[in-house]
């Protein structure tokens, strides 16, 4: 609808080229016109697209904090600069926000005047028939015997769906008034989507937690491994549910080219919606979350938690229980650490790999040959010293701080490694047992079995429907805006030398319009009818 836009926006657009005036009031109006011009909107759209690019190249804090941390370690000179530029959280950065806020202002500044114009245009009658129809983009003429009045009556009938005005000797018709409404709806919906996003990220939260099967979880902030609340989120408002993970199932394909591929994950939960309420059971799967009072629990990952017991030199148990090892890849080779602060005489730490079904070759050392825990192997390095748990700095449970620790050595000076299996592995002639005694009277470590863990995501977005409704409305508006063809048609008929000269002309006001066919059709219908009347 280039013509249409020209009439409503052309003025502003042309004035937007003027040089900035100096008087504050004039300057303000000038700046506003600049900001709300189509050209600025276009440039801001480009900036938005361009600004989004770095977020796909540099690892984002909010998407994958581990990757972001790794990237920082690898690029020591660049990292501080990137940090300053907000490149690790592009989509919350001041400059990205500036772009979309400007775009929103521009958008609102664009919608309001257009809505005002539209409200009057909506009720407008079709423009009067121009004097010289032949100058319009589409023009046909023919002569007939029929009476001019009859032709015009007929035109009025044929132009159904048009808003039609009957003038002296002509008919003026227009249709497609809803196009502009669609376009406005689209742009308003874009604002709604943004509001939905903003409200959701202000008042909602997202948290991640790893629970070993058999373990329990209560919905309080302290129980989360990661917790990402909105700025205005009220932690007291967490739904007070709790659940235990009773079971986790996964099927690994055992043969064919899909061997090792995992599928059909499902976790069984027993949950209590409010403290003291009745216990209910549910299974959650990928794509099938559990909703408890508007809070959703998603299954997003799984892995193994070897069950370990550590004893001191006297045989006293100083550590016992399953330890989460995080999978590194689809073969489920997993990494983890065991911290034993209660060991005596010194604290103990273990760090190493878990192989669910271990294989071995001299070249590669231990590898996983299958992701299911059929022949598990634990291979750990042992440290003694101070775990650093008491100096007040919070530590990740997945990392060992070895600053104050020494690796335990063998008699020959090489690092002492603990290899543990459940009793059936033997790669090098020495059977790998389930218990290993540590040197220097440090005690022993036993591998009791393998538990599974699930990684759950818990989230609540109080208005998650708003953004989605916004997008759907936007789509509706867009369809109207793109496919409703606003057009004007005029038919004039006059008597000349005993015959009726009929002129048909049209103007398409959409950007993709092709009016020729429609005018052709209109002419055909008018001629047809006129001929029938001729023949009578």
């Amino acid at each position, binding site marked *: 609808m280039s013509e249409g836009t020209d009439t409503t926006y052309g003025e502003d657009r042309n004035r937007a080229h003027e040089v900035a005036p100096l008087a504050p009031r004039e300057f303000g109006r000038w700046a506003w016109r600049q900001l709300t011009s189509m050209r600025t909107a276009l440039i801001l*759209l480009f900036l938005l697209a361009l600004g*989004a690019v770095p977020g796909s190249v540099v690892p*984002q804090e909010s998407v994958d904090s581990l990757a972001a941390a790794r990237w920082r370690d690898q690029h020591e000179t660049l990292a501080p600069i990137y940090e300053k530029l907000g490149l690790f959280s592009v989509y919350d950065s001041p400059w990205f926000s500036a772009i979309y806020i400007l775009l929103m202002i521009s958008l609102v500044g664009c919608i309001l005047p257009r809505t005002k114009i539209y409200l009057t245009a909506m009720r407008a009658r079709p423009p009067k028939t121009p004097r010289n129809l032949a100058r319009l983009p589409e023009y046909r003429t023919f002569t007939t015997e029929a009476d001019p009045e009859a032709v015009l009556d007929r035109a009025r009938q044929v132009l159904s769906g048009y808003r039609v005005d009957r003038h002296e000797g002509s008919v003026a018709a227009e249709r497609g008034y809803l196009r502009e409404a669609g376009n406005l709806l689209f742009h308003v919906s874009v604002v709604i989507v943004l509001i939905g996003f903003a409200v959701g990220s202000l008042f909602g939260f*997202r948290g991640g937690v790893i629970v070993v099967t058999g373990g329990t979880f209560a919905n309080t902030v302290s129980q989360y491994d990661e917790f990402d609340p909105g700025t205005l989120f009220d932690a007291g408002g967490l739904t007070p549910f709790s659940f235990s993970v009773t079971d986790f199932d996964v099927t690994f394909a055992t043969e064919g080219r899909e061997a090792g591929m995992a599928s059909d994950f499902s976790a069984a939960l027993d949950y209590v919606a409010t403290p003291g309420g009745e216990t209910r059971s549910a299974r959650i799967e990928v*794509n099938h979350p559990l909703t408890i009072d508007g809070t959703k629990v*998603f299954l997003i990952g799984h892995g193994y938690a070897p069950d370990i017991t550590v004893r001191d030199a006297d045989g006293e148990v100083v550590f016992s229980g399953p330890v989460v090892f995080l999978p590194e890849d689809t073969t489920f080779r997993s990494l983890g650490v065991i911290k034993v602060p209660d060991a005596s005489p010194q604290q103990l730490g273990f760090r190493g790999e878990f192989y669910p079904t271990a294989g071995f070759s001299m070249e590669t050392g231990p590898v996983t040959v299958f992701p299911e825990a059929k022949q598990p192997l634990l291979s750990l390095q042992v440290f003694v010293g101070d775990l650093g748990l008491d100096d007040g700095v919070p530590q990740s449970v997945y990392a060992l701080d070895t600053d104050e620790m020494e690796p335990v050595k063998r008699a020959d000076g090489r690092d002492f490694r603990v290899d543990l299996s459940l009793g059936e592995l033997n790669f090098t002639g020495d059977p790998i047992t389930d218990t290993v005694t540590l040197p220097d009277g440090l005690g022993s470590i036993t591998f009791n079995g393998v538990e599974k863990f699930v990684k759950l995501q818990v989230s609540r977005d109080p208005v998650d429907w708003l953004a989605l409704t916004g997008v759907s409305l936007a789509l509706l508006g867009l369809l109207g805006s793109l496919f409703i063809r606003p057009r004007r048609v005029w038919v004039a008929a006059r008597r000349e030398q005993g015959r009726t000269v009929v002129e048909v002309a049209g103007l398409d006001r959409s950007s*993709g319009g092709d009016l020729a066919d429609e005018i052709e059709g209109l002419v055909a219908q008018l001629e047809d009818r006129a001929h029938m009347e001729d023949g009578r």
Partner: protein
Amino acid sequence: MSHEQFELLSNQAVVGCAVFYFAALLAHVAEWAAARTVPVAVPVGVGASGGGDDTEVVEESTAKRDRFARLGVIATVVAAGLHLLAVVTRGLAADPIRVPWGNMYEFTLTATCVVTIGYLLLYRKYSLTWLSPIVTGFVLVILMADALLLYDPVVRLPDALESPWLVIHVIAAIIATGAFTIGGMASALYLVKARWLDRSGEERPQRAGFRGAVAAMFRNYLARLPELTQLDRFAYRVHAFAFPIWTFAALIAGPIWAQAAWGRYWGWDPKEVWAFITWVVYAAYLHARATAGWKGRAAAIIAIIGLATLWFNFVGINFFFGANSQHSYA
């Protein structure tokens, strides 16, 4: 038939349709070569002197041209049939059977099929003879690259992909991609023709031999392209068709699926970022067409940028950032 046999059939159908695309391309090249004698660019005055002879040449070559054009379209129809067969059997080859778009190979196979089918559907309505060599050449090249570089054996879908929203999301994304591709071709031709018109005033040395023949073929091709306004309008129509579908695929169906699978509607994962970028660039294209000073050439360039971001998202993201993206089909 067993799943393995279906897989084999699918691969054979790909080879078969490539052969027919190649035949179609040859026919269309011959069509434009045959058009050489049509005196479109004949300097004024020459036609008038040798009137009778000229008309005869024109008629003969037009008939030949039409014959080649028809042959090309028939070959394309056969190719499209085989192409569709390749897509369907690819789905039947999986166990359990599934929609045939679990990896890049399958996605590209289907998207190129949509390009061909879209072109054939619009062929008559918009008299797309001028688009034939471009479509057949493009689909042939992409299909070859797909089969040689991206081929992956059939496997089941990962759990996260097993959702009706995936099917809806991907169908919409593929249709939009096919349509944007056709629209991008028209925009590219718009730019080529605009440039050619700009320079047509310049004197250029006539080349002889093979290069001269190729240059003449190009000239004839460009001269017979629709007028700039018509190219622009066709491009707009196709883009206007594709844009709402892309909006639906990327901003509605995609997020609904992501919510079900990963617990968030939108997470700025690289694939999502680029789907968003594509959307914004095409919104800019639609704006540009309504903005003074941006109509025409600038709008066409924006459309091509949009297409570049779209295909980059498909292929580039998987290659460069595969490990970072939850969408990666590794």
